[in-house]
């Protein structure tokens, strides 16, 4: 076969051109060794995309290998479009989380919308029907107009896309801190269900089988998006980066979803993959790489949106809503027929070969021919030493004991914490998302975890996303452990057994030692927690370079946790139910205020040692909660996290927005802790539960059997009563209407004002 020749008009390969492609001189030497010759311009573009941080994981791969990925229930671990676990009853769940931070910082609406589109495709290309989405969003402070613009644009983008495709949103988190001022974190997670036997993978098996481009046409949008996601932003990127942001079409996505599932069920295809980051290049090369085969495709056969596109552009376009399908030879017409029913195109563009190379032609003339495996797996990886920044160390080691007294008094501080946007209700956000479509949403957003029913069964899947950026900033290892522990606790509160996680690791530039330190520490913390809690990592995404003008975001390792409830009749909700019910605290109060919402909201301070995680106690607590929920003795269970006991008690009393099912409570603490530390401390390993009076003894017994501290702290009181809290030093009597206004009104009062 003829080796590819430069096309007329291709720029010569110079050190500057190589550098512009984000390829280092060492990496270029590696490329020369793999190719045995100088690459063509097209080939350089292909390497640039595949060896970018986004696709090649060059600064993360070695550390990610430390994460636990196996368990008997894990069907598919990292390396595929999505992870897959067995959820029982013959069903498998495909799930994954992915970032769309860089596009969202530039164009929030389309950036977030296409993030949803991409994660849905990752899930339905496994053969699973998407059944739920979650979003983990981190923004700067809402008093900044640009933050409000980004926040409202991202929420609208997520809503418009997900609503149109018809996938319910069941949860997630929204977090605000000045650490995210210029670089919002926009992570989208999707869950999909399938019968176990319907699983399909992104492989190009069977020499002679046919490659088909399916779905939307290829245009010039998003060229080098993967490389863009691997650079930091700078002032002025608003304008210059726009062509790298893709535009989504949720209607086409919906058609593609239905067509893909029909295609997979038809048996006409052997593999399917989203043309996501690095488009046709990554999907073609990865499918060949996974199967040990090769692919050959002719770009002249790819349906395009505009004339005159070069092979370079066609290969690197990130136009949305496209798939690469490997059809069994001879079934091409049957594939086309299914796509036509859904008013979509499917064109034969090439075939599976035995050559082991990623070979591209243009009208029959070779323009690229690269060994597939080195392209997908051979990206040089780095593990350079890191070092903690002195600034962070100083903040962490700061003595915060002088901040125990709220300047305006305890009640004011209580209202400030409950009304801070991090603690306050996210109703303004999730009511813009369809949460009930498909009629399987058993627990909607607003509780500890969303719960979706497995259709046709009484089995449920619980999911939660968590990462407290302030905690991971001050201590990445403890913060990452805490994120895993909190996510597990959240799903456990609903009565679900934590099973596995997907993660989205959002960091600054890995070229900086202090970022490398954060990344390494966070991975180690995650490793420890996931190993101990037996929740392996089945995949995810790394997003580096979340920086603007040298200022990095807080290290933000977002955890997407999945849990399974065998019997939905045992589900537990977060809000108190009946007056007279007994309220217990499971776990012990330690009054850890480092990195707390209290310090931020009341003292404008990010400092101190964040709460430590006792994994043994955490696991005992989880088992205890599951024993209680399966015995049906709990009326409610609600995790203690951001905002401490104050937030947990208020949320347990207020119930759901619009439901009118709020109650009061009377509680008393005897802990020998300063009031602020007791009420606002964010110590891990705690859950507030309630039960009917006649179950009190059983609750105590189950807790004692599991070695979990269990303290009766009070009683649920009738609707209209206040929340009364007595500590050793103070008595608070808080009107529920006032708390309700603080909690439900905080975000709308900022967002519904004229911009």
């Amino acid at each position: 076969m003829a080796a590819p020749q430069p096309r007329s008009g291709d720029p010569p390969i110079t050190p500057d051109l190589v550098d512009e492609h984000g390829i280092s001189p060492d990496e270029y030497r590696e490329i020369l060794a793999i190719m045995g010759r100088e690459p063509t311009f097209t080939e350089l573009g292909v390497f640039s995309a595949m060896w970018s941080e986004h696709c090649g994981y060059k600064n993360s791969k070695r550390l990610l290998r430390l994460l636990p990925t196996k368990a008997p229930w894990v069907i598919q671990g990292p390396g595929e479009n999505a992870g897959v676990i067995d959820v029982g009853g013959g069903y498998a769940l495909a799930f994954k989380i992915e970032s769309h931070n860089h596009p969202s910082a530039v164009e929030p609406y389309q950036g977030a919308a296409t993030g949803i589109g991409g994660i849905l495709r990752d899930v339905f290309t496994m053969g699973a029907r998407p059944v739920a989405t979650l979003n983990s969003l981190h923004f700067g402070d809402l008093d900044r107009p640009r933050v409000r613009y980004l926040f409202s644009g991202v929420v609208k983008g997520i809503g418009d896309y997900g609503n149109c495709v018809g996938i319910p949103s069941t949860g997630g988190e929204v977090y605000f801190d000045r650490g995210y001022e210029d670089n919002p974190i926009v992570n989208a997670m999707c869950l999909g269900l399938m019968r176990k036997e319907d699983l399909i993978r992104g492989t190009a098996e069977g020499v002679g089988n046919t490659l088909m481009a399916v779905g939307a046409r290829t245009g010039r949008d998003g060229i080098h998006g993967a490389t863009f996601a691997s650079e930091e932003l700078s002032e002025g990127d608003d304008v210059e980066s726009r062509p790298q942001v893709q535009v989504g079409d949720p209607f086409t996505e919906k058609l593609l979803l239905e067509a893909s599932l029909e295609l997979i069920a038809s048996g006409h295809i052997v593999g399917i993959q989203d043309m996501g980051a690095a488009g046709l290049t990554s999907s073609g090369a990865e499918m060949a790489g996974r199967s040990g085969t090769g692919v050959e495709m002719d770009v002249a056969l790819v349906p395009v949106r505009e004339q005159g596109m070069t092979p370079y552009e066609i290969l690197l376009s990130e136009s949305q809503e496209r798939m690469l399908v490997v059809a069994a030879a001879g079934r091409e017409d049957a594939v086309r027929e299914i796509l036509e029913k859904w008013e979509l195109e499917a064109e034969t563009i090439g075939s599976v070969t035995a050559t082991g190379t990623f070979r591209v032609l243009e009208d029959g003339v070779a323009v690229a021919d690269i060994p597939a495996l080195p392209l997908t797996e051979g990206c040089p990886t780095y593990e350079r030493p890191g070092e903690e920044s002195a600034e962070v160390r100083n903040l962490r080691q700061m003595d915060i004991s002088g901040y125990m007294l709220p300047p305006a008094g305890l009640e004011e501080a209580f209202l400030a914490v409950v009304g801070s946007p991090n603690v306050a209700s996210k109703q303004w956000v999730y009511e813009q998302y369809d949460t009930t479509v498909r009629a399987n949403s058993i627990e909607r957003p607003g509780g500890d975890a969303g719960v979706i029913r497995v259709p046709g069964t009484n089995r449920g899947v619980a999911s939660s996303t968590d990462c407290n950026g302030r905690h991971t900033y001050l201590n990445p290892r403890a913060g990452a452990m805490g994120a895993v522990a909190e996510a597990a606790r959240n799903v456990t509160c609903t009565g679900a057994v934590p099973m596995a996680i997907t993660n989205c690791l959002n960091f600054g530039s890995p070229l900086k030692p202090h970022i490398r330190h954060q990344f390494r520490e966070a991975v180690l913390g995650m490793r420890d927690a996931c190993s101990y809690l037996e929740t392996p990592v089945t995949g995810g995404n790394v997003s580096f370079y979340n920086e603007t003008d040298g200022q990095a975001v807080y290290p933000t390792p977002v955890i997407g946790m999945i849990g399974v409830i065998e019997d939905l009749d045992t589900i537990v909700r977060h809000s108190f139910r009946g007056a007279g019910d007994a309220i217990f605290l499971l776990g012990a109060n330690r009054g850890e205020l480092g990195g707390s919402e209290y310090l931020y909201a009341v003292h404008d301070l990010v400092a101190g040692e964040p709460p430590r995680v006792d994994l043994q106690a955490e696991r005992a607590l989880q088992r205890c909660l599951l024993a209680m929920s399966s015995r049906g003795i709990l009326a409610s269970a609600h995790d203690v996290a951001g905002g401490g006991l104050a937030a947990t008690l208020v949320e347990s009393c207020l119930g759901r927005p619009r439901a009118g099912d709020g109650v009061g409570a009377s509680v008393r603490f005897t802990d020998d802790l300063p009031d602020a530390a007791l009420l606002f401390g964010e110590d891990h390993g705690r859950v507030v539960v309630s039960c009917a009076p006649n179950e009190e003894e059983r609750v105590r017994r189950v807790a004692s059997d599991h070695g979990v501290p269990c303290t009766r702290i009070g009683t649920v009181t009738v609707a209209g009563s206040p929340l009364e809290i007595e500590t050793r030093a103070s008595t608070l009597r808080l009107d529920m209407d006032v708390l309700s206004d603080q909690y439900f009104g905080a975000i709308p009062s900022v967002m519904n004002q004229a911009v």
Partner: protein
Amino acid sequence: MNVAVITFPGSNCDQDCFRSVELAGGSPRYVWHREQSLGDADAVIVPGGFAHGDYLRPGAIARFSPIMGAVIAFARDGGLVVGICNGFQVLCEAGLLPGALLRNESMRFQSHDCALRVERSGTPFTRDYRKGRVIRMPLSHADGNYYADPETLAALEATGRVVFRYSDARGTVSAEANPNGSLNHIAGIVNADGNVLGMMPHPDRAIEEALGSVDGLPLFTSLVGSGAGTAAHTEVA
């Protein structure tokens, strides 16, 4: 009772409606939008979603789908037709129901539970409800703000064709309880002959206790005439 559930490209609630009919004791069947005939259908449901992507405006393209000719003829012959959410928008665009659904007053998509007061129990769609009863179900739309010109609106009221009205939990209508700005707090109406119903909230998402409400089920039992919903009604009333 054979119920045709129309599926357009972009329909999202076809499966929810299918299941609702099943639970109510009817026999549902999907009918693809390119078909020309409703076959042996005794009733038709136009489900929610984003038919044809809601391009141009909700329902504007769906009314030209081949199956709509058959749906319009079926309705003109007195056949029972229900449009839910996007289905309501499609039926308005197709001229089977008067008025239009404008963008919500908030200018945002809204998805949450709402309370509805049942204004008519005598229709083929509400015979398993008691008049004046307050029911609860999710709504989920960006364009649910019902509008009709003053004469049409007066005629709807004068002839008792407003079937559901947004209210609070006690059945009181007010601006606060109106989620989208609909004129006269209208959530659902029937046509002049009383055989075509359109409503914005989702009874198809309130059919089981596990979902938080069974208040939508009587609509489907009324439709299929099974009477099975009467029991559910008494239970929760």
